């Protein structure tokens, strides 16, 4: 496998080059047109502020990241449990599915304000609740689909084996739903970080990345604000990488080659 590092380099180099090019262009535009910091900040200035403020940025990343992680975890657990209930009781499915669509149609920010009024202003609960809710619906919809959409040939085979409903759940429905769960987590992970930031814009403790970005920019400390944005990018990337790593561990070898349509 001596060509593996070469292959990785070949895959990474073009987008990396594009990124460097765009940053260079950004830098050049700011310098050539002598743009003022309140209009647009040069990447080198952002980087300098990022280094200066690293320990504060790190603290804010931990705060927002913890909120996102809690929401992701609770949302995933609740979503999986509810998906099992829905696949077991058809009546519940008919009740919950329209409701989940209705809840999804409510703009998330409205809910954060409501939660903020319900709990103390310094509480982390409203934000975690917000993330939990978003992740819950993504996981619920996907896992429920995985539990329900059994290949008809598999269903007939299990009937020919005189398998009980419990056997079908254990040996067909659950393994069938596993790839759906990881798809949901892959979508949810970056989403949980975004909702953790967004929920900080509606009052409450001013310790997370979202609060820091808005307060710095409103105080005309644009370069520092951008430095926090960079921190937010890194956190989102970290969550995405974790979800990809989880998927690789859960489905060794076959993740990409699987034929989920079942042929």
């Amino acid at each position: 496998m001596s060509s593996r590092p070469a292959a990785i380099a070949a895959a990474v180099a073009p987008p990396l080059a594009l990124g460097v090019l765009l940053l260079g262009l950004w830098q050049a535009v700011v310098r050539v047109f002598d743009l003022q910091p309140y209009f647009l900040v040069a990447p080198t200035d952002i980087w300098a502020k990022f280094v200066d403020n690293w320990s504060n940025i790190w603290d804010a990343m931990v705060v927002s990241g913890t909120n996102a992680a809690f929401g992701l975890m609770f949302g995933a657990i609740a979503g999986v449990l509810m998906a099992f209930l829905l696949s077991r009781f058809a009546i519940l499915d008919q009740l919950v599915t329209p409701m989940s669509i209705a809840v999804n149609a409510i703009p998330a920010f409205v809910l954060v304000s409501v939660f903020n009024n319900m709990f103390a202003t310094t509480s982390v609960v409203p934000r975690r609740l917000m993330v939990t809710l978003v992740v819950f619906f993504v996981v619920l919809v996907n896992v429920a689909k995985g539990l329900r959409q059994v290949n008809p040939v598999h269903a007939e085979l299990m009937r020919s084996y005189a398998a009980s409903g419990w056997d079908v759940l254990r040996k067909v429905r659950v393994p069938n739903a596993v790839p759906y769960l990881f798809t949901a987590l892959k979508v949810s992970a970056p989403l949980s970080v975004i909702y953790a930031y967004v929920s900080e814009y509606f009052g409450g403790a001013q310790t997370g990345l979202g609060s820091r970005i808005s307060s710095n920019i409103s105080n005309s400390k644009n370069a520092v604000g951008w430095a926090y944005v960079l921190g937010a990018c890194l956190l989102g990337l970290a969550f995405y990488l974790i979800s990809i790593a989880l998927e690789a561990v859960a489905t060794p070898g076959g993740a990409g080659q699987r034929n989920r349509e079942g042929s």
Partner: protein
Amino acid sequence: MSADAASTDSPPAGPDKPVSAVEVVGVSKVFNRGKASHVDALVDIDLTIVPGEFVSLIGPSGCGKSTLLRLIANLTEPTGGTITVAGKPARTARLEQDYGMAFQQAGLFEWRTVAKNIELPLELKGWDRAKRRARAREMLELVKLPDFADHLPWQLSGGMQQRIAIARALAAHPPLLLMDEPFGALDEMTREHMQAELLRICAETGTTVIFVTHSIPEAVYLSNRVVVMSPRPGRITQIVDVPLGADRTDDTREDGAFYGKITEVREALRGAEFDLTAKGIEDR
């Protein structure tokens, strides 16, 4: 040859086996009874299959051949008549796993290794791990894929997957194998190879087979008897005996008697199909 002529080619029933492997008496199946979409899928079907016999069901789409197979498997219930499998009602036979089944899609469970796929019916029968392992190994030898136990299904070709599906269907050593166009999705070369393999496996295990197909040469090559069916309503129009001997090889496909039987089945199908709307019969 008439439908009730004694089959000269089928092995005699053993003393400890029931006289018939499958007995279908006066069976009918109606879909959507009483509605505008009412369909007589099958009317008045009588068919007796003796142990060790290989019987093909052939006919145009809509003749009810797959429905008949599903009735024997008790995957669906007949509207009228009785079905006996291994001397028991079809439902009892299913609950006791007295048959194995294979479909056009191999239908392997993609999250299980090849060996674990073969072990699944045994797991559901409550066999312990060591016994399952040993049987899976034995079945992989039977279908000549002993080195693929730990592979995942996607790593296998279509023909290999279908062989694993047959190994799985036979894992519990059922006396009866039900196959619904198992080779329909394979290319012609693989298909002929699989046909020869199936005959070898059935000869080794003494399994009775009911085989649904669209292909006349396939039916003739494999079968002791070919059951010709016709649609609207689905019924048996003729049963053609195929006394080509028990030992069929690739040379059999070149044999004059083989072509004679192909012609006989084709004419039976034409006779069944005087409205000339037959679709889906392959003449290859």
